[in-house]
């Protein structure tokens, strides 16, 4: 981004400059190679880890960066704005929150310092199941207490970055649904220390990678009496859903920032190409049919960005941020998708050429309409919890 499109680019200038400089060394060719090989951007993630960006939300007392959520969101925004994809590593930020807020002091002392030093990775989150998506209370994976351990059995899906994590946060039912007063009760969160890949099957765990639309490593995971020490239970047994939901607002805000980063990347590419590409002896950007969609996408992106900062400020102030966080994610995902469409359209046929990176980013930003929460579920949340309309599901 050269002619600065983002009026808030001066905010947190030091963080932006440093992340931008690091990401600048991983250009389009790097991402094209990684995707062509179906690989994981190990060097990129290692560089981010080494510079401390992925542990920004761990308090300084545990060796982390101790940043606010707003500052952390700027990190992810800049990653995506550079043309990279935070999806390779953003969960390190999200999942940490559950341990931070609900872990015991002993658990935090045990895991957070090595995470902060980059010696451990906590990048995977196993909640979704084939028969229970957003309806989390219906999950079927169970954790049965047996002495000083729990035995996990069940199946998870869309568990991301599994080959690149040491720890896995998992939600399982510890009390059958029929035996609880409220559907949300009887669920518990565990932090699994994954054995080396060669030993996982013997330990009762197997995984099957899911090929998907983007170069995102995600798997279906099967557990069969996989043993977890009881001391790895996070929070109170049976109250795990609350531990998971607690982290959702932070996740929404951080994802919104990624969308904003994507949006600025697309707009800059569209703007530049529209100025440079000459057809019928004038730049195509001189045509209102080309420039108006770019200008509209820009306006919508700025509006979404304001909502993202509003949500982050509420979160950092300890206020209720559910409505703002969901609204920010909704608007930002819509804005980035609009920017993606505009950028592809502006480039015409060249937008489909892999070397332009646009088709890759186009696929990547499309995901935000669906994950980590679908647009419709956000609308349902706003309708019910903010506007007081009857629950629709």
């Amino acid at each position: 981004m050269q002619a600065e499109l983002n009026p808030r680019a001066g905010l947190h200038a030091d963080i932006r400059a440093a992340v931008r400089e690091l990401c600048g060394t991983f250009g389009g060719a790097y991402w094209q190679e990684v995707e062509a090989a179906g690989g994981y951007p190990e060097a990129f993630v290692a560089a981010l880890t080494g510079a401390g960006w992925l542990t920004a939300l761990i308090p300084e007392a545990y060796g982390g960066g101790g940043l606010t959520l707003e500052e952390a969101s700027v990190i992810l925004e800049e990653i995506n704005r550079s043309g990279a994809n935070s999806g390779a590593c953003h969960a390190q930020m999200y999942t940490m929150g559950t341990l931070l807020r609900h872990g015991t002091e002993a658990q935090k002392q045990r895991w957070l310092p090595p995470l902060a030093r980059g010696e451990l990775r906590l990048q995977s989150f196993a909640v979704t199941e084939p028969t229970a998506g957003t309806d989390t209370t219906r999950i079927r994976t169970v954790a049965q207490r047996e002495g000083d351990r729990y035995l996990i059995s069940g199946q998870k899906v869309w568990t991301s970055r599994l080959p690149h994590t040491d720890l896995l946060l998992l939600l399982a039912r510890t009390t059958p649904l029929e035996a609880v007063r409220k559907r949300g009760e009887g669920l518990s969160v565990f932090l699994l220390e994954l054995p080396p890949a060669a030993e996982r099957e013997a330990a009762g765990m197997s995984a099957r990678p899911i090929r998907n639309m983007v170069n995102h490593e995600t798997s279906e995971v099967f557990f069969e009496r996989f043993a977890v020490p009881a001391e790895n239970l996070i929070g109170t047994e049976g109250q795990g859903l609350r531990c998971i939901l607690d982290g959702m607002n932070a996740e929404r805000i951080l994802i919104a920032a990624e969308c904003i980063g994507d949006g600025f990347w697309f707009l800059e590419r569209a703007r530049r190409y529209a100025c440079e590409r000459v057809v019928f002896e004038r730049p195509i950007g001189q045509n209102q049919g080309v420039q108006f969609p770019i200008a509209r996408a820009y306006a919508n992106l700025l509006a979404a960005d304001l909502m993202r900062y509003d949500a982050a400020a509420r979160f950092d102030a300890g206020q209720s941020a559910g409505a703002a966080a969901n609204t920010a994610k909704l608007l930002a995902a819509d804005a980035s998708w609009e920017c993606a469409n505009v950028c592809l359209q502006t480039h015409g046929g060249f937008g489909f050429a892999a070397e332009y990176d646009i088709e890759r980013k186009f696929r990547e930003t499309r995901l935000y309409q669906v994950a980590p929460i679908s647009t419709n579920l956000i609308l349902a949340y706003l309708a019910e919890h903010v506007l007081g309309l009857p629950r629709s599901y």
Partner: protein
Amino acid sequence: MKILVCLKQVPAKDAPLKLNQAATWIREDVSFETNEPDAFALEAALRLKEAHGGEVVALTLGPARAAQVLREALAKGADRAIHLDAGEAAAGAPPLDAFAIAEAVSRAIAGESYDLILTGLQSDDAGYGQTGVILAELLGAPHATIIMQVEPAGERRIKVKRELESGNFQFVEMPTPAVLTIQSGINKLRYATLMGIKQAKNKPLARMTLEEIGASAGLNRQLVHRLFVPSKSKGTTLISGSAKEQAAALVAHLRNDAHVI
């Protein structure tokens, strides 16, 4: 070893440059970054400090926005920084010439004794490539340019590797204090880390105005009156005549107009 590194904030490399209304310089609405050779000079200084101890001081001259390059230098490991604040009038104005910059720097560091002063080989904006050389002259110190490598060579001496033309190098041993202008690409630049950025907030960043050190923008000896954007033109010339005449005319065009043969 006490090392001063002079850094300049310049428009980002691939910034689409537009002239200001008076066509005296470019518009301010672009991204800025640390001049590339200066970044390598900083890296060289930090490596010398890590290997041999000492202090690295980063210095820049420019408007308020230029302090960003100092914060980045502090985050990467510089111990302290000096911002020669040229005032907001400097933003969007043609940059000071090499003599004015060198003179301001020499005044700013008067009273301090550095073993080494590193600058980039040249700036990516004005591109004079003279600041370090003039600074050496003003300080009465020896200098060497286009430096690829620096290493101590005994008490108050260093050995440097200079890049010459045609792939040749020159090794020079020289006394310190000395001024070196550093070539790009001589080392692998480090990233600023999150911890580095946080620690930088507690490092000294001194600010002094040009007036305070007795310098001013009026010192410029080289004035930019007007800039021109190269005009792109394309045209077709039809060459007529016999084959021999056409060939001769084509050769003349290629030699005299296109300058390709």
